[in-house]
Structure formats: C-alpha cells, structure tokens
C-alpha cells in the first residue's frame, strides 16, 4: 500500500523521466535550498543513483557562506555536473522595481544569460503550488518564449499526467516536478529519506531560516525548531507564510508577479 509520500515521489519521478526522455539540453536548477535538494534526490531516485543532467547554480554572489560550502561538498559526494553562472550588477536591472525585488531580479538576468550561453531548452525547477498565489497557477510543463517570459493568463490545459513536454522551436520548457507538494510534504520527505540540508534551516539562538535567498534580502523567523521533526511540528500549527522572510514578495502588490512574468523561478 503506497503512502501519501510514496505517491508524491512516484509522480515526481514520472515527471522527471518524461522531461529527460523528451527534452534535449535539459538542466535542473540547484539553488541549494531544501526544495532543490529534494529535487536532486528525486533525480537520483529516477535515474538509479545518477544525475544525468547538469545542475545549474545561478550565483548572485550574495548567498550565505554555509550554502557555498554545502554546494562544494555535495557536488562531489553526489557526483553532480555543476554549471554556475554569475549575475549582472544591480545597476543593470530595471530601476522601477522595488529595491529587494530589483536585487532578486539579478538572478533572473543571470539565469537568462546562462541559458543563452549553454543553449538549454528545458529547465527543471523546484517550485510548489502552495508557496504563493501566482505559483499556484503554474503547469507541470510550462512553455516559455525564448526570452523566458511567462503569460500566466494564457496557459495550456494539462490533462491527467499526459504532458505536452516538447518545447516548440525557439521556445523553452520549464518543468515543475514538485508543483503538487506542500511545504509540510517536503519536510516529511526530508525526514523519511534523511536528505542533507544547509544548517541555516535549523534554529540557533531562537532563530532559523524558513526559506533561503540572498543574505541581504532574507530574514530568519523566531523558532526553536532545531531538528527536522521539530520543524514538522512547528509547521503543523503555524499560520505564517513560508516566504514571509523574503522581502521582495511583500514590497508591493505586484512585485512578485512582475518577477515571475519575467522568468523568475
């Protein structure tokens, strides 16, 4: 008898295998956060211990030192083909965006550059529907124009798990194998599979990070949860949003929407 986590895992593996079979020049975004580590874990499950596609880290240069150390360690341990790309300075970014969103938009610009450089047609990203309103409207296979722009008002239908996976010529496909997971599912899976994480998620001196972004635009929450089990217990009672520590989500009503429409993950 399959459990809820078994079902989530199996569906994600199916999505990953469909993407791998049907999209040339496919890569996975490895942000070093909990969701993208789950994604790498699922790739290794889907491909029997191998990560057969490059893992891309778009480096803003402003991540926590713990995150860089984590990357270097697990790159080797998990035998990952790591591709990194840097981001343009903030001065080159649309000045009409609010400050934190403008800072976050550097990542989108860096990603676009890297996609162009490497000629990727498919991008696997670990976003989830429960993260925020706009992501809930996403598809599992989400076609984008070559420039990465997303028109969330005009999206293709998805029937069952029969995906329209191949990108049209000149377009990209974004693939979202964790779309149907919730934050709690992610933590329960991390607990079950014993997936390694950056320490910043675990409380020290009454603070921990619930979501990891750039150092300057991410703030910790008050928490005493210092183990995965304690985090799960905490999440079951909270009514506070996961991304509440991400400054750019809250600057103005449409800041996140503008970021996403432009290709932000």
């Amino acid at each position, binding site marked *: 008898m399959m459990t809820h986590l078994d079902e989530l895992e199996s569906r994600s593996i199916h999505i990953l295998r469909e993407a791998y079979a049907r999209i040339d020049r496919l890569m996975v975004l490895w942000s070093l956060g909990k969701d993208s580590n789950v994604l790498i874990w699922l790739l290794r499950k889907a491909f029997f211990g191998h990560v057969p596609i490059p893992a891309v880290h778009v480096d803003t240069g402003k991540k926590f030192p713990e995150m860089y150390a984590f990357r270097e360690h697990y790159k080797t341990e998990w035998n990952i083909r790591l591709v990194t790309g840097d981001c343009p300075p903030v001065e080159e970014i649309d000045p009409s965006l609010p400050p934190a969103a403008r800072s976050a938009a550097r990542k989108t610009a860096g990603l676009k550059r890297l996609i162009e450089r490497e000629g990727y047609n498919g991008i696997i990203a670990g976003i989830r529907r429960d993260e925020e309103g706009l992501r809930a*409207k996403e598809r599992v296979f989400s076609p984008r124009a070559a420039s990465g722009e997303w028109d969330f008002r005009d*999206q293709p*239908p998805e029937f069952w798990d029969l995906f*329209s996976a191949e990108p049209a010529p000149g377009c990209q496909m974004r693939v979202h194998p964790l779309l149907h997971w919730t934050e709690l599912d992610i933590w329960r899976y991390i607990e079950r599979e014993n997936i390694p994480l950056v320490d910043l998620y675990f409380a020290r001196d009454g603070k921990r990070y619930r979501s990891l972004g750039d150092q300057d635009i991410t703030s910790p929450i008050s928490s005493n949860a210092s183990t995965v089990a304690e985090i799960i217990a905490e999440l079951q009672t909270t*009514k506070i949003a996961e991304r509440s520590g991400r400054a750019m989500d809250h600057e103005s009503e449409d800041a996140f929407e503008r970021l996403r429409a432009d290709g932000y993950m």
Partner: protein
Amino acid sequence: MADQSLLNVVFVGHVDHGKSTVIGRLLGDLNALPDGKLEAVKAMCDRRGMPFEWAFLLDAFQAERDQGITIDTARIFFATNRRRYAIIDAPGHKEFLRNMVTGASGADAAVLIVDAQEGVAEQTRRHALILNLIGIRQVILVVNKMDLVGYAGDRFAAIVEEAESRLLSLGFDRSRLTAIPVAARNGDGIVAAGDNMPWYQGPTLIEALDGLDEKTAPVGLPLRLPVEDIYKFDDRRIIAGKVEAGRLSVGDELLFTPSGHHARIAAIEGWPEAGGERAEAGQSVGLQLDDDIFVERGEVASLPGTPPVLADRFRARLFWLSDISLTVGRRLQLMIGTASLAVRVVSIDAVLSSEDLSRDEDREDAVRHDVVEASFETVRPIALDAFEDCPATGRFILQDQYRVVAGGVVLRDGLTDRRGGAGVKSRNITRVIHSVPTEDRWRMNGHRSGVVWLTGLSGSGKSTLAIALEEALFRKGWQAYVLDGDNIRYGLSGDLGFSPEDRAENIRRVGEVSSLMARAGQIVITAFISPYRSDRDRARSILPDGFHEVFVDTSLAECERRDPKGLYAKARAGEIRDFTGIDAPYEAPETPELRLVTDGREVEENLRELLRYIERQFAL
C-alpha cells in the same frame, strides 16, 4: 489530528450560483483562514458601508494575491479532523475551462454548486459533462441559496431530481452522488446543519466531504506498464516506467505491445536500496529483463494472458479546445500512455449538446469547447485500452504543432484487436536486431538520417530540387541519395503501371527502400508525385520518426506552363490517361513538415529554404 493524506476536490458551478460564498464560508466556519483575514475583510466592508459577504474573502485573496499564504485562487488547503483537503477552484475568466480541466484531472471528487432559484444551468451541465469525461466519479451536489426559496423542501427535491437525472444519463453512479441543501450566506448546511431545514436529515457539506473516498490506484486491474525510457547509465540496462495498473513480481513474463517481444523480469531496480521483489499500480519502477530484447519508449508491458488492445483505429469521446475546428481528414499528434504518433480523423460521429446532452450526429465539425465523439486512424498499430477497462491506458491528448487541442477517452464500442491479423504475411519472420545501432551510424556520419519525401504535381520542380539538395548536402560532407520516379520505374518498379493500385505499390516499395537506406545512415531524398495521402501516410508509418514530408506547392497552371516533358500537352490531348492534376486526383498534404510555395520564386531560393530545414532537422 488530520493524517497525511490529501483529498483533491474541484469546485464548479454556474456564474453567480455562489461558489465563492460556499468556499469562503467553509473556510471561515472551519477556522481555516489566516489570522486577521476575516476581520480585515469585515473592516473593509464597514469602511465602504456595505454588508459583509463571504465571497469577498476570495475576491480579497485574488486582489491582494496574498503572497505566501497557503490560500489562493487556484488551490486552497484546509484540514478537518479526518484529513487534509485541497480545493481546486478555477477563476471564471476566459480560460476557465482549460484551468478547470487541469485542476480536475487530479481531483478525487467534484462539488457542483447549483442556485436553488435558477436550478441546473447550461454551464452546470457542461461542467458535469467534462468532469465525467475526465473520469471523476464522486459528485456532491450543493443546492445553494436555500434562504432565497424559503428553505422549501419541495424546491430542493425538484432541483435534485432534475440534476440527478442529468448526471445519471451521463453515466454517473447514483450511489456516488450526494445532494445537500445549503444557504452559504447564513452558514446553513456548510459545517453546521442550522435550524432552518428540519426536513433535511442528510450530511452537511463538510460531513459529505469527509465521507468521500480517496482515489485508489487500480492494483486489481491487469498489469499495464507504459515504457518511458531505457537507461544504460552503467552496466545495467533498465526499462523505466510507471505501473499504471495491476501488479508485477520478479520472475513474471512480460509481453511488450506493439513489438510483441517477451522477456522475464530479472530484477526490480531501485536507489538507494534495491527495488524489492514486487511493485504495484502507482509506483515508478525500473526493471532489468532476463533477455536483451528490443524495447522502446511507447510500448506497453503486460502479462501475456491479459494484453492491451493492439489497434490502428479507435473511437473516442473528447473535449475539443482549439479555435480551429475538428474536421474529417485532419492530422493530429496522439499521445497515449508514453506513445506519441500521428492520427487522422476518419469521422465525426456525434457532438454532445450541453443544453440537453443529446447527440447531434449530423454535424461535420466540432468547435472549441464541444464534447465530441470521433473515429481515428493511427499511422501504425499501438497499444491501448478502452477507458472503462483501464483508465490510464485509455485516455489521451491530441496535439497540433506543440499545442494541446483535446483530451479524450477511448470508447470500448468498435475496438478490435489487430493481433495476428494483417501486416506481415509470413509469421516466421523475426526482425534482425542490428548490433550497430542507427545512432552510432549518425555519430560516424556527423548527422541524423531519415527520409525527405518531396511530393507535388508533375513539373512542380521536385526532381530539380532533389538533385540540387543532394549536391549541396554532398558538398557539406553529408550522406544523401536521391530516389527519383524515373530511376525507380526503370528497375525496382519496372513491372508497374499508373493505375491507383500500381501507384500505391510503387510508393510502398519506395517507402521500404527509403526506410532501409535511412537506417543505414543515409538522408534519402525521394521525388515522386505520390498523389494519394494514404500512400504517403503508409510510407511515413515505416519510418515515423525520421520522415519529413515536403510539399512542393506549385500551382497546376504554373506546372502546365513549364511542362518540361510535354506531358501536360499529351494529357490534355487525351494521349496519356490517369495523369495527375488532369484526369487523376492530387491530394495535397494537410500538415506537411515543410511547404515550399514555388510560384514566382527562383530555384535557388527554394533550395535555400529546404536546405535550412534539413540542416536544422538532421543536425546532431
């Protein structure tokens, strides 16, 4: 405490029948709202001097886009003492149906909201029709706004009777329908029953939700494992796929359809631990076989005694979503299981009316948002099941140029198995599996191989283009060879004339020869009038993945003006019979891979366009 399981419920209803009010009230009464949300909306109403409405809650979520809170307009999560729920609510804008289909595809059940005053409306019926097509079997019928009909039991009974008769005629099962009278504005029948309807003894909405069954994987059905891929990351050769139905164990003999190959399961692979001895419906697995048989993506593995149907024709009920209408003869890309191949519409059998669910059998086309029954012909036999026998291998999507234009289900009626039937006459032929894979030949040659099939009227410029293309590719260092009407008819087809039968046989031979040469690594360029669509489709079916139909589209007037061999003049004079375009038909391709409109263009210009296409398609 709620357990981990999650029940997905799609909420649908006609505009203004109170869907947002029902959802808002449900969340409010369950205390499932984020802190302060209800108070904020109430304060907003006070400020504006209007009465509070529960629907404003959802509107507020949308307006504020409520970033980060686990509530939004497309997925709303909440929990009862029994389990967790995700409400799927598609906003009612122009893309409503696409979003509804997407959300409902993963739903365990549906809540259908009907206004007690207005009763079942057109949209309610259309939604029910689509939910049924998608395979939703559990429905809660919420008759809302009971307060506006004085909480009258007879009004409720009348609406339920009408709605049930519609739903039952669609094929829903009465035992899986629940009807509930509700006044969402006052909270009657949502979480608490209230005092206004003492005549009603049934469940409230929340009780009915808790009474729904979770969708279970069909472990009791015959085994179906559509092959997703074959992996050779290390010394293991692993057949990967998701078990869609039934069970399998190490040692079981598998039959692969359509290839017909057999092998036993040697091991179930897994990571980090091995995969164990058994697997069942719902699991994504990897298998090692005891024999290195040829298996490819798109095949379906089953137990030998209970195989899927091998079909090259089927009837289906589908939901059409394209602005371009569905007509007989249209060529589309079918995806079923993991197989993807071209199909042609053979007939439009009926369009179902959402007004009264009657069948209109006289329509010749289906338009956007129609639910339609149609018959299809595939370019080669494939494995499938009737939807009612095995949902996962009986449902499909249709694509047109990378866009999904329909989703549908295979009907049992008229489905026949081609196993052991026509096709290969000698049953003792076993295909030799080459030890040099075609892909290795590609790497050696530096390009892919395949067939570039030029079709067009006599004098359209096919041969000129073919020869020029061959030369251009040769200069690039690519392996290319032209098969031309004249050089084939002097030898291989020297025994054939120009009757439709002989033309068909000629094209069949050319198709087979082209396919062999393509497998040997060549880019084969054929230049034949090939006037009949069915003949070209048959040639395509021999090498479906490497076949490129190029329509050299030159008008009859222009061909006749050129008349390089003086044949049009002879045909007009009656000296030649069965001449294509004069007294024999030319069936132009409907969806060729490339169409070259040559009138008024130089040969060089056409050649450049063709060459660019070839370079794009055949590059490694």
